[in-house]
């Protein structure tokens, strides 16, 4: 379970601080999914970085499975906007990076995950040789390699073409159901939020506050995009964002 209580985050020094997040509260039960949506620059990345331990809250608390977050931890994986791959490492090295950093490689490796994602064939290639869709999958492989209980995604599919994006959204959904991690997805894409979030928090302009919580209980099927409930959630989100 992830608990975020009265989260406030300022940038800059105390005298000339800029508030990016101004009192955000939510709880996410184990294995559930949450989408955070809001205008760009509102503080979404800031919230995600604080949950991943990269940034300490100015006020408020974040706990994961009962322990306060004080820094990056092994059971929490973060996927960044452009997959966060290192260009000088091969697919194999990128996928195993988290395990290498924690000292678990080569006792454990990402071989099985690469198989699952259909990347075994390209494991000796460098990121520059891959299509955008493949790069995202390598980023996912690295995140999954440590079998995390929490997966954080920061606009992971921005700048992908529509078809590739939907294919990878389908992949996210499948992985979320099979690997059973808790998912927090940051996006500015309404359709993505509606497809992947069981609950969707709509944020205000900076500083981020929760404008509205939208429940999306019927999500979870690959054909959800064809359903009436999906269309309704999308419409609802659009209304709230425009308000």
């Amino acid at each position: 379970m992830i608990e975020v209580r009265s989260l406030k985050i300022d940038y800059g020094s105390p005298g000339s601080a800029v508030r990016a997040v101004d009192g955000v509260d939510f709880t996410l039960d184990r294995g559930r999914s949450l989408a955070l949506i809001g205008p760009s620059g509102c503080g979404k990345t800031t919230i995600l970085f604080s949950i991943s331990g990269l940034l300490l809250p100015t006020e408020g608390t974040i706990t994961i499975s009962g322990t306060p977050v004080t820094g990056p931890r092994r059971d929490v994986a973060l996927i960044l906007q452009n997959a966060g791959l290192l260009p000088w490492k091969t697919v194999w090295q990128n996928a195993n990076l988290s395990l290498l950093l924690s000292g678990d490689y080569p006792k454990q490796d990402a071989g099985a995950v690469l198989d699952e994602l259909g990347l075994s064939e390209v494991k000796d290639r460098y990121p520059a040789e891959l299509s955008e869709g493949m790069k995202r999958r390598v980023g996912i492989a690295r995140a999954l390699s440590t079998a995390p209980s929490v997966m954080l995604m920061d606009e992971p599919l921005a700048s992908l073409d529509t078809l590739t994006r939907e294919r990878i959204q389908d992949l996210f959904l499948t992985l979320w159901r099979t690997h059973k991690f808790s998912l927090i997805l940051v996006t500015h894409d309404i359709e993505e939020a509606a497809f992947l979030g069981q609950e969707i928090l709509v944020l205000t302009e900076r500083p981020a506050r929760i404008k509205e919580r939208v429940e999306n209980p019927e999500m979870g099927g690959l054909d959800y995009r064809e359903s009436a409930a999906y269309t309704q959630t999308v419409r609802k989100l659009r209304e709230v964002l425009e308000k």
Partner: protein
Amino acid sequence: MKRTLTYVASICALLFIWEMASIAVNAINNAPLLPGPFNALSQVVKNAAELQHHFLASAWRLILAILIALATGVPLGLTTGREPTLDRFLSPIIYITYPIPQVALILFLFVVFGTGSGTKVAMVALVLFFQILVSARGAAKNIPEEHIISVRSAGASRWQIYWHVILPASLPDILTSVRVSIGLGIAFLYIAETNAALGTGLGGYINKHMLFQRDRAFAGIIALALLGLILYLAVDGLERILCRWKYVSRRAR
């Protein structure tokens, strides 16, 4: 095949320009002042053993100086590039000392290191140290933040960030500064070797023969050019191994 032809054509053009220059200079002055390439090359062959001796002396000084400059300049450059507090402390020192012509210190170096190889290596290493330090610092400053965040979120320690991100990301720029260092290093090695008239080294050899046996002096210059070329090719080869990722994008997807 086509590339080899271009290289050959380029060398021929160089020899041709040299020969023309030699003919022109000698005609204008009505005296054999500038030896042509073929005279110089025949002196290379004639004095091969002696030249090799001086070549090796210069080569190991230059290589040692580059290695010393790398071993000091890279760590200091990368850390000042990444650690703001260290940068605030060291930047003023660097920018005050960087523009001082390091040759100004050469007599001082002779006093400290004597007239042997020590001074020559120290002179060149000092010049290249700044060159490499400034490049490494600039490279480290320009690393996209997302690379750092990506490994930090995976729990990387500070040392791991340097090893897995900052060093490899800066390596292409560092190798470029090594290429620049070869040319710069040869120039300063020449100065250091001619200042210490005694002893081995191509600088002394060239200087010694420049007045009365100019074709031998030019044979020495050819040897010095060859030294630069060999080191250049070595750095290119090293880059192809160490920065293989930079060359793959040209391969088909």
